[in-house]
């Protein structure tokens, strides 16, 4: 790509984003406004995650990009190619080999380690947006730690359904101060946010906000003492590798209601199968 800087963004812009990221890390879970740039990919398709990755990426980094847990979904392919072209860095599909993982809607099944960075693509950074459309008002609510509106929503769910009905983008309290949207990861992935050894960065390009969870930070999914947070996954096991604990994709196999279930995390599934195929 002629005429473009390493990882596309100019150094001033990267510096601006890194300054915002430092603020984000200093105030876990708090949304920091940043001067989001127009990127060659559309808003809503990962421009926030891409800007965060571009700002922290170095020539020695190894990048993994996943969407829905898979390395080969079209948008993950598109983003990985973007960085390969503009930065020339090494890319990988193996979670354990990556130094930076950019993700949409999943946290890898494999536990992360210190030194890794997980960059989340965030469509709507404001956890209260569905309850209060005015950003001016939600900013005030965060500043005053007034989260009654969200608690009321959970109370109403329990009243109406007997349990909380939120199944993804489940709101969390970070360091017991800020209410945060973890991005549309399934509620099943929420426990992985808590005290994760990796640095977790969140980028929302269109809404122009970023936020962060520093390593080993307490992250609690909202619940009631007598209705504790619980996760949801398809109760089956993976038809390819047999795992009954990983998050599964439901695949429609025929027109008679036939189904099979496979791990959403393709690297996790392939690694398990590779181990299974090795002679004992």
């Amino acid at each position, binding site marked *: 790509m002629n005429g473009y800087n390493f990882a596309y963004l100019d150094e001033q812009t990267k510096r601006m984003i890194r300054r915002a990221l430092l603020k984000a890390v200093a105030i876990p879970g708090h949304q920091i406004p940043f001067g989001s740039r127009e990127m060659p990919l559309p808003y809503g398709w990962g421009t926030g995650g891409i800007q965060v990755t571009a700002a922290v990426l170095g020539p020695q980094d190894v990048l993994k990009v996943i969407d829905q847990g898979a390395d080969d979904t079209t948008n993950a392919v598109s983003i990985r190619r973007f960085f390969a072209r503009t930065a020339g860095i090494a890319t990988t599909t193996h979670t354990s080999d990556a130094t930076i993982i950019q993700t949409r809607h999943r946290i890898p099944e494999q536990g992360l380690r210190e030194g890794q960075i997980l960059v989340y693509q965030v469509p709507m950074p404001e956890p209260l947006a569905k309850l209060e459309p005015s950003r001016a008002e939600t900013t005030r609510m965060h500043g005053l730690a007034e989260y009654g509106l969200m608690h*009321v929503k959970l*109370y109403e769910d329990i009243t109406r359904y007997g349990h909380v009905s939120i199944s993804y983008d489940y709101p969390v309290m970070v360091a017991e101060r800020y209410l945060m949207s973890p991005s549309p990861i399934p509620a099943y992935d929420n426990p992985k946010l808590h005290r994760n050894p990796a640095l977790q960065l969140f980028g929302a390009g269109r809404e122009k906000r970023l936020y962060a969870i520093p390593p080993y930070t307490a992250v609690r999914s909202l619940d009631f*003492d*007598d209705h504790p947070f619980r996760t949801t996954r398809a109760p089956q096991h993976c038809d390819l590798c047999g795992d009954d604990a990983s998050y599964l994709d439901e695949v429609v196999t025929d027109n008679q209601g036939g189904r099979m279930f496979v791990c959403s995390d393709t690297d996790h599934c392939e690694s398990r199968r590779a181990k299974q195929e090795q002679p004992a």
Partner: protein
Amino acid sequence: MTDDRMLSASGLNLRFGTVPALVDVAAELWPGEVLAIVGESGSGKTTLLNVLSGHMAPQSGQVLYRAPDGTEADVHAMSAPMLRALHRSDWGFVHQNPRDALRMGVSAGGNVGERLMAQGSRHYGDIREAAIAWLAEVEIDADRVDDLPRTFSGGMLQRLQIARTLVTHPRLVFMDEPTGGLDVSVQARLLDLIRGLVARLGIAVVLVTHDLAVARLLAHRVMVMQRGEVVETGLTDQVLDDPQHPYTQLLVASVLAA
């Protein structure tokens, strides 16, 4: 003599253009006392309520609030977070139109429980029990706890608002025409309820009303306002039975004529 007034305001002035809303107004409130501010529309009574509760700033004068621990604070010098915290705990505000204060898309239980949740209550069962208990206090059937306020009558909505306000045991409640717009029989029942709750819980109330009968029923003291000025103040029965100021006399006479 120690000053244990809960609220004391002095020298309040406020104009909207050329219209005087408050002219050198003073007011005071003791713990557990009900003070009614009466007057016709344009008298400045609602403006005074808004200034006392910190919702509107006066152009001069001050409002001081004494907290339970004895410390005194200037209501209009407080930070916004502090004022909001005050309104969520020690203070309450009952609006004339309950729809302004209730979440119409949230169940009655959710409405009552919200302040508890905002203060950190995290047990669903306990919150619901507290909500049901308070609904009983305001004479709403327990089996309405999961209903949406949309299905409630005007009187029920107002009672729900009161429950929502009192659930955190505030010491001071501001009320803006709490029975306005309700049928006479509904008003009577509501006034009885308010009188009982306020007396039993020892709540201090600043109550704005144009209706002298409401003042007589609920208030220990009354302030009469006309065009931004306090023209008369004193014990309710004394002021209403033996009005001194011509305007007060006019007000009282109009009630009798009706």
